[in-house]
């Protein structure tokens, strides 16, 4: 069992879990992810490693509740445990000294962006971060991100904090303001990653996105996570999850993301109806 050492709410329906998984922590690098299973009837859920502590043997996960499995995971407390944690999976993000790097995070994407931003900073890059959320109270990891960034730009959809607009507006301002950006890393909802990639394509700035395709095993065995990149089929779990944002077929991926939409909705509705009953422990 993989015990949860610490749990906290970061924002509405966003939860942080520090999980004991010494062998994963020992190997984890920025960009890696794990597959977890919560309970014997649980699904295998991919989650990015948002941080790790090799000495304590723990990894940090940040989860947004979007459906049945993620909301059940968000209900876990310190002392509970995951049935399974497999990892570290995928290729670590390629970190190099390239000059100026802009890390763009949308919503819960701040969690996976954080270790990448830190690694780029440690490699000697100038690091500018852009954090976008629907509104102010959904922003988290602010202290962490500011500690590893030379500058942080905030955007909110409702204008309650930072720039009133989307992360793309902030990126455009940075580039148009004369910053010579060598690389952009964008992680967040698919439409956001697509918008950032479309923008930076125009500027000719290399852009890495981290794809969250639906997965089962996470080891290259099922092919369920396939995406088209540069006209070729790739398995995001083993070939990625990082890919060249300018080459990804986002339209296809968005469609594939919805393959089980009806079933997911059914499970979630059922969970919400029955959820309270089973939470009386």
């Amino acid at each position, binding site marked *: 069992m993989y015990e949860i050492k610490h749990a906290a709410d970061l924002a509405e329906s966003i939860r942080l879990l520090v999980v004991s998984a010494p*062998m*994963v922590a020992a*190997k984890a690098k920025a960009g890696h992810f794990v597959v977890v*299973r919560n309970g014997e*009837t*649980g*699904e*295998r859920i991919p989650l990015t490693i948002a941080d790790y502590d090799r000495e304590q043997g723990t990894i940090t996960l940040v989860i947004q509740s979007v459906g*049945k*499995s993620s909301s059940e995971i968000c209900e876990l407390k310190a002392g509970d445990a995951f*049935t*399974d*944690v*497999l*990892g*570290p*999976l995928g290729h670590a993000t390629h970190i190099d000294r390239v000059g100026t790097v802009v890390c763009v995070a949308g919503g819960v994407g701040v969690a996976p962006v954080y270790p990448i931003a830190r690694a780029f900073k440690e490699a000697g890059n100038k690091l500018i971060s852009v954090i976008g959320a629907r509104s102010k109270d959904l922003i988290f990891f602010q202290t962490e991100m500011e500690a590893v960034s030379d500058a942080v730009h905030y955007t909110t959809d409702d204008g309650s904090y930072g720039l009133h607009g989307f992360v793309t507006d902030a990126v455009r301002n940075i580039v148009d303001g004369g910053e010579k950006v060598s690389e952009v890393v964008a992680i967040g909802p698919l439409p956001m990653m697509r918008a950032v990639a479309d923008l930076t394509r125009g500027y000719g700035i290399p852009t890495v996105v981290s794809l969250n395709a639906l997965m*089962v*095993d996470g*080891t*290259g*065995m*099922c*092919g*369920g996570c*396939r*995406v*088209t990149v540069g006209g070729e*089929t790739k398995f995001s779990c*083993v070939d990625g999850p990082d890919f060249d944002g300018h080459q990804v077929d986002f339209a*296809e991926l968005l*469609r*594939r993301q*919805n*393959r*089980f939409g*009806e*079933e*997911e909705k*059914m*499970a979630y509705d*059922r969970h919400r109806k029955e959820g309270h009953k089973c939470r009386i422990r």
Partner: protein
Amino acid sequence: MSDKVKMREQSPAERIRNFNEVPYGYDEREAVQEASRCLGCKKRPCAQGCPVEVDIPDFIARIKAEDFTGAAEVIKRKNSLPAICGRVCPQESQCEALCVLGRKGEPVAIGRLERFVADYEREHRSSDAAVVPAAGNKTKVAVVGSGPAGLTAAADLALMGYEVVLFEALHAPGGVLRYGIPEFRLPKAILDEEVGYIRSLGVDLQYNMLVGATLSIEELFADGYKAVFIGTGAGLPYFLGIPGENLNGVYSANEFLTRVNLMRAYRFPEYDTPVRIGRHVAVVGGGNVAMDAARTALRLGAERVSIVYRRAWEEMPAREEEKHHGREEGIDFKLLNNPVAILGDDKGWVEGMECVRMELGEPDESGRRRPVVIKGSEYVLDVDTVVVAVGQGPNPLLIQSTGGLETNRRGNITADPETMATSIPGVYAGGDIVTGAATVIAAMGAGKIAARNMDAYLKGV
């Protein structure tokens, strides 16, 4: 000469509505009757056909004498997974192919008898293990992958007294026996029992251990393991490379079967993993994998399931029994047909599959007549789900992370067929990762040979 004793099974109409096992197995009387057909040949031709060297005439003689526990002991000396082999071995091309009775009539039903003995032993098991491991020698050995190859190597090494740790990437043991072969052909409770037996021999099974990511072969040696067996299987699904393969509604057989078997999507929403099955399902391929996918789709409620295969019936590599079962269950066999494109609607869901008809031309290198396209025979098959079951290759993850491990052109690990030794001293490999997708029993045979040679290597012979 009498015919072989029939095995009772669920009727097709009944079984396509459930995931319960299809055949019921022999009862004691039927088993004794079938065993009585065996001539107890001195030369033991049948035994030559068994890769794990089961002493076939001996266990059958025990059944004849109604000593079923004794029969189990005889089998378990050589085979740690008899209830599984009795169910999924392609006996017709293994042991039963060499039975002398087969020359004039039907061979002895060795597989069914093995299944009977294993089931009997499981149901009547006393607390004592049938076979006792040798006294421990405290040498640590590692086995990677808990498919039939890994399980067999681990069991044999444990029986020799080694301290065996078995590392498995998934959260449950068995490899294809778990995620590929469906419940109605191999109940998971039986797999659990046989794996439980292997653990009772002292094998320490560790899950969520992706060797090549969580830990490396090099680290295993650094941690004090003296030898390693790699049995990681052929887990990488191949696709057809035709347009439309990434449409919603197209699965690899691995994804489809993993969702249903490992993750139990057939019990969704009690289990969280979903699977979506359409009205009309096309399964592309003609092996055991295709047959399992098709019969699973039927049980999940598809109205029509078609197998689309580019060669003829005789050439379908699936086990005879399963082809026969599939036909009884009403699978529509579109033989000498080949898909050329999968068609999608404006939302990205499958709405048809364009196929061509084939005819048999000249024999190819394999001696089978090569299927060639009939010009102008294109047509669209009305389907909303496609399962691609055209084979699997070696997963490159472990290989890429292990320096010095030689592979062949297709990416399979190169191992000496006599010893299963790889290019790295102390590292052995066997099963699908070496041969490419083959059979349960071939994988087990490789695990057995490897265990024997690892022992010799460790003793410095």
